[in-house]
């Protein structure tokens, strides 16, 4: 590990001031790992865990979660559990209890891909680490890689479970920078790799994530998160599905769907949602919607199974959510 100076921001304003020349440190559950591996080599770290960790509802029913809130605190919060169960379940599907106790919401948004070649500084080329250097994952182990939204430069997936739920929940990211405050929809916060896979988010140098905001909505209360992976716990998703819906007179009224594990960012399934709105929930309808969403999927040698897996997992989640016993 490289020598590094560490400082702690005691206010948002101080964090913004320090962010210009340093890297922000939340729980350290990803950044410190990457520093140990030499993937990240910051010379200055600013600890932002003293910023707001509050979880509270606003008067208009939106839930505001401070960026320093620990993942475990969010998952356990009564408002989250009752209004947004998919978020609670998504967080609990990730990492381990120890990691969730450390990890922050802001850090979760900023975590980087778990591509094995990205992590292998000594032995592998990676366009995300070093733009233009090449990608050794291509033709290598691509089981965990994207089937949609990737580029020739990079097909790594975003590893977060929480962000998949946030994408489905229409969450916003509140950002503060030298120029003031702005809000970015979570679905726009992460960007697709194209030819600059090193640029992963909309956050600019000098900006700090203040909070996320989640609107209250009936579909969010009837929601679930299902994660499919290579062992029962402590593994990244091969495919995950976050979804919530409401029914009216036997038809789907509101519906939100997001996939994890299949794309470089949390993949909001707008096409599938559109296809299912106003439709009687049947296995055929679910399949047609999934087919539509993944029509342009282009699998790699090692992950073609993800197309079928994503479709079947979506169908299983929707079958469950639209069932009578809900």
């Amino acid at each position, binding site marked *: 590990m490289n020598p590094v100076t560490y400082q702690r921001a005691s206010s948002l304003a101080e964090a913004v001031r320090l962010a210009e020349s340093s890297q922000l440190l939340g729980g350290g559950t990803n950044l410190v790992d990457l520093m140990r591996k030499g993937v990240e080599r910051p010379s200055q770290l600013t600890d932002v865990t003293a910023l707001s960790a509050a979880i509270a509802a606003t008067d208009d029913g939106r839930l505001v979660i401070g960026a320093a809130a620990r993942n475990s605190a969010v998952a356990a919060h009564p408002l989250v559990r009752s209004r947004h169960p998919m978020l609670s379940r998504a967080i609990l599907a990730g990492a381990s209890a120890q990691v969730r106790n450390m990890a922050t919401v802001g850090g979760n948004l900023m975590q980087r891909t778990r591509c094995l070649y990205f992590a292998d500084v000594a032995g592998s080329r990676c366009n995300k680490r070093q733009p233009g250097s090449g990608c050794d994952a291509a033709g290598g182990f691509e089981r965990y890689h994207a089937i949609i939204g990737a580029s020739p430069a990079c097909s790594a997936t975003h590893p977060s479970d929480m962000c998949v739920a946030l994408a489905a929940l229409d969450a916003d990211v509140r950002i503060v920078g030298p120029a003031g405050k702005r809000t970015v929809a979570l679905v726009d916060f992460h960007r697709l790799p194209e030819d600059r896979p090193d640029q992963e988010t909309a956050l600019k140098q000098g900006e700090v994530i203040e909070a996320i905001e989640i609107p209250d909505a009936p579909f969010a209360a009837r929601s679930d998160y299902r994660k499919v992976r290579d062992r029962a716990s402590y593994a990244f998703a091969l495919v995950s599905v976050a979804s919530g819906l409401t029914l009216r007179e036997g038809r789907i009224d509101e519906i939100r769907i997001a996939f994890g594990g299949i794309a470089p960012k949390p993949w909001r399934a707008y096409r599938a949602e559109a296809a299912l709105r106003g439709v009687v929930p049947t296995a055929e309808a679910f399949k047609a919607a999934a087919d539509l969403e993944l029509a342009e999927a282009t699998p790699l040698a090692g992950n073609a199974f993800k197309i079928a*897996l994503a479709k079947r*997992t979506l169908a299983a989640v929707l079958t469950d959510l639209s069932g009578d016993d809900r």
Partner: protein
Amino acid sequence: MSKVQNAVVGSVRTVLGWVPSQWLPGGTPDPLIARRAAVGRQASRLDGPLKVAGKARFAAEVAVERLTYATLVHSPVARGRITHLDTSAAESAPGVNLVLTYRNMPRIESPALISLSDFSAVGNSALPILQDAEIRYNGQVVALVVAETQEQADHAASLLVIGYAPTKPTTRFQDAQAEARTPESLLVERNHVSVGRAERELARAAHRVDNHYRTPWQNHSAIELHALTVIWDGEDSLTVHDATQMIAPSAVVLAKLFGLKKDQVRVLSPFVGGGFGGKGLWDHQIVAIAAARLLGRPLRLMLTREGVYRIIGGRSPTEQRVAIGADGDGRFTALIHSGHSVMPTYGACPEPFTLGSRALYRAGSFEMLQHHVDLDVVPNTFMRAPGEAIGSFALESAVDELAHEMGIDPIDLRLRNEPERHPISGAPFSQHARRQAFTDGAKRFGWERRQREPGARREGEWRLGLGCATGSFPYARMPGASARITLRRDGAAVVACSAQEMGMGTATVQTQHAADRLGLPVSAVVFKLGDSALPAAPMAGGSSQTASVAGAIIAAAAKLTGELVRLAGNDSPIAGLRAGEVHLVDGGVGAIGDAARHEEYRSILARAGREEITVTATGSPPLEMLKYAMHSTSAIFCELRVSDATGEIRVDRLLGSFDCGTILNPQTAASQFKGGMIMGLGLALTEETLFDERSGRIMNPSLADYHIPVHLDVPEIEVMWTGIPDPRSPLGARGIGEIGITGVAAAVANAVFNATGRRVRELPITLDKLL
């Protein structure tokens, strides 16, 4: 017979002429089989409280003054040469004491390869250790950086500038298969077994299966990382606190490599956090010891998890063919097992996956042959039940396939082919109750709930299935195991040898054993181990340590008996009796068959004016292995569910029913069985080294990416045993360390087939194979 057995047999044949009679074939069974008090009792580990309190000091925790810390640097290319080496930045970094590369590493030989005919040879690789600029596999050690703190060493290591001129490596299994070698022997077992004309019998069999099975690379993932603390006292006294399962042999080899006398080297390893075959002598010890000598300061090297994957070999991948022919009644007429595994020319372990198949079933004909694929890799090594763990996956899947094909219950099919004697050698079994293990296990497990037709049981989106398999693992007792007994006048005894405690309960069980052997309560006995200064025990491997150490204690107790009879003299109640007419019982020496003639140790020692008696003896040669086929066997049962939607597998229940002779301590034994079975679950479902065949590089060298089962993957596990003593072994016991994993992968695969109708012949059984 297994490789270990055969090696042992080979080495003892020569000494047949002068051995004592106790373990001669047909000799008297160990009297403790019938007369035991502590042995067989449930007892918590004696070292449990120390471990719970964090007071058990492992190799990387020994406190030493003026300690330095080291970091290894690994080659990122598989073949080639170092063409540029700039150590200046690293050397001038804060706190750095030494940067060791091939340029300043002392010239030193590589240790002799592990061999079962030379029990002091313990090397895993014949490659030079930091001796030249050549790179021979991806991950090879190219430098060691030593500094005042671990962080300084780690940082300085990142400042090394090393340039390589890579050449094309051989790293593709399939490509190298064409050039595979066919060795004469697998260690000392002959490779080619041919009984009858198996291919012809197979072709004309009424029923047959003939398929290929694949198993992946696997790596050792013991919770304790490989580590050592090295202390040189001058140039000619070396102390190494090592995490090793071969204490005495390591001391012998290190003395030779570093030009010392045997008594100038001491290896200490009182606690090891899991060995499984991986905690042997590898490059890191040699490099660290050399660096500490150059530096003249104590040094600690603990591998990173990545380092363990890079320089400690694991389990070789295999491609196996198993074919079985059967007549209309299901009797095997042909059994064929062949295939390929990796073994570099410079490695020591041939991954003998066909050996288990030689002991399991009677058959009209046999054909077995293995081929070695030569790759540029860190040499694979022994990993819990090497050979048997993955060989049984292929064989026992095939048996299940044949049972399905014939419409016979798979247990029934197995029992129809139960051998009366060893199927190849014809030797009688010393004790063999696998039929009972199967029957008892099936009853406890509720095997009758199994539906013969695959996919017949459902719960929601889940399909449920049951499967079973059997395993066989050979008994071995290593020659040359020694022990010392010190009996004090106060009636307490200290028993000592350099045995290894890797968490399986060796200290506890041998204390129980020694107490019974000496006729003392457990509280009066201390068992010392983990130190090469003690009488030498063999390495812990091949599930042989318990029997080997027990044999040594038996020999020492016999010698002690003779001493006591002599000391007792003519004024004792046992006067006039010979050593063979007495036994050690009730804290003293008593006449066999006459409880009235007995004298306590304290009385004998007091009269003789002695404070204590010390005897040291070496266990008799393991002649029991000459005449008898001695194997631990098992019946493994698995119940699981497979999601129709996602292909996910959830194991609901696992049961192991074992026939392993006397179980010495139900508590430690159950833990060891369960640990093996959990490792079997990993083998079946999750474990796979992602070896990139383009670069020869392991891509998942971390426990986040190399998937061993987590708690949520591990179901309720039941273990049971026949407990029938083996009349030919010390205490009636056979090894239990490796039988637990053997058969588990096949039981899981067979349950998956029963649940889904899908036959997966490639491990691990990941969900994509079931979509």
